[in-house]
């Protein structure tokens, strides 16, 4: 496969066990540019392990991860990032002792490889680009605010700006809407979807909020006990009897519009 025809992200036979326990077994899937793919499954199904192998925090026992046809398996997180993968965390990870803009500028400095340049100043570095990114996620008015003072929803948006700073091809989002009010969830995911489609960024996210998954994902893959058990459009997945039995339940705890009986 040449780089031009290869999918943005191709995962093949990914496997990992911890002390004899199979966390992830032979998982394969692919993601194209501009596509939004949700990874769901019961607690302990191996979603986090799978995610951490993609972003480099865990080295897989077997299998391949390719970005645009190039192997990124087993690279350190910062190397994975350098190849164009941005990420957000389930619990926001930002730099609380810096201002909102500096949070973005640090990343820009790192992206330009200027960390060890003593003649460069972070607070004045790439102001325009930093402000453009903040503007993009609707945080333009917060640039001078100390990051430690932000409300949780704003931190999530700042994280998105930070994740976009290296102009990634792929965005990995671990429970992007965890801890947010329903309306904020919808807004954040709409924003993410719009940016992804405009800039042809592939998005892979894990989520327990089925309203978010069924509303925004183009495709859904389902993990159970470390194995991929279903894959398809949101409608296909929510009709899948196996997925309903092990994961979705009776559908009492997500929006009626997304329940099986009312699906059209």
């Amino acid at each position, binding site marked *: 496969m040449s780089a031009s025809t290869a999918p943005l992200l191709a995962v093949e036979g990914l496997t990992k066990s911890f002390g004899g326990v199979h966390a992830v077994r032979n998982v394969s899937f692919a993601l194209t540019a501009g596509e939004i793919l949700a990874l769901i499954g019961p607690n302990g199904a191996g979603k986090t392990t799978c995610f951490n192998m993609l972003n480099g925090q865990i080295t897989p026992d077997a299998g391949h991860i390719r970005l645009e046809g190039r192997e990124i398996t087993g690279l350190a997180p910062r190397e994975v990032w350098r190849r164009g993968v941005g990420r957000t965390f389930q619990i926001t990870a930002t730099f609380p002792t810096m201002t909102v803009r500096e949070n973005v500028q640090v990343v820009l400095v790192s992206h330009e490889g200027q960390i060890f340049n003593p003649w460069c100043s972070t607070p004045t570095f790439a102001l325009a680009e930093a402000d453009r990114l903040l503007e993009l996620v609707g945080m333009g008015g917060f640039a001078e605010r100390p990051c430690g003072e932000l409300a949780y929803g704003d931190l999530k948006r700042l994280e998105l700006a930070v994740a976009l700073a290296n102009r990634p091809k792929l965005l990995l989002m671990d429970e992007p809407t965890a*801890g947010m009010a*329903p309306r904020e969830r919808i807004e954040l995911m709409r924003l993410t979807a719009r940016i992804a489609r405009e800039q042809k960024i592939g998005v892979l996210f894990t989520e327990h909020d089925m309203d978010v998954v069924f509303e925004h994902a183009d495709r859904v893959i389902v993990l159970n006990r470390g194995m991929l058990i279903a894959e398809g459009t949101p409608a296909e997945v929510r009709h899948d009897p196996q997925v309903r039995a092990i994961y979705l339940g009776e559908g009492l705890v997500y929006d009626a519009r997304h329940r099986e009986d009312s699906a059209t």
Partner: protein
Amino acid sequence: MKLSVNALNSFYGPAHILFDVELDVAEGEVVALLGRNGAGKSTTFRSIVGLVAQRSGRIVFEGRDVTREPTHAIVRAGLGYVPEDRRIFTDLTVEENLEVGRQPPRAGAPQWTRDKLFTLFPNLGEMRSRLGGRMSGGEQQMLTIARTLMGNPSLVLLDEPSEGLSPKIVEQMAHAILTMKKEGVSILVSEQNLHFARLISDRVSIIERGRICYRGTMEELEARPDIRDAHLAV
């Protein structure tokens, strides 16, 4: 009133987090405290059980003013607290986790034994000597609730019991909470998932930026789409 909280104000260092929070829970009732992350739900709970040092106001539990009492005394009086993020003891077995929560039986509160809890949460019964760290998120969440019930509380504060759990486990959780209610435990539960709250609660308070901005029954909230849109819109 089982529990009434009046004019509760809390601070973390210089930051003022809660502003004149008013809450009450009647005997045998399930009250949901709804709001987003950072709205002050966990701080409210932590303040009620005395884990936030800087606070003012009045907290009355079963007619007794517990505002100035230390956490362990409040809990021993029968006010159970299930913290968010599960926080089970990962190096202890299921049975040892339950042992930590054990308190003598208390008059006027339902009494829980290991066996009764294993009926309520059948999964736990099958893994009595498993280490907490080797359990899935759903099992851990059930263990935290079971552990608090070992203290035979008459009121339980449940902080975000559905957070991070799969829809199916959330349904099981709702079932367990309704069973607890039937047994006679009053419950104050914090939630973000309105669907879940609808399944379990009698009354609702909505908190935003440290202030209670709506109080009513579940039915009243259903009839107020404007409130739902403003604070919880789906």
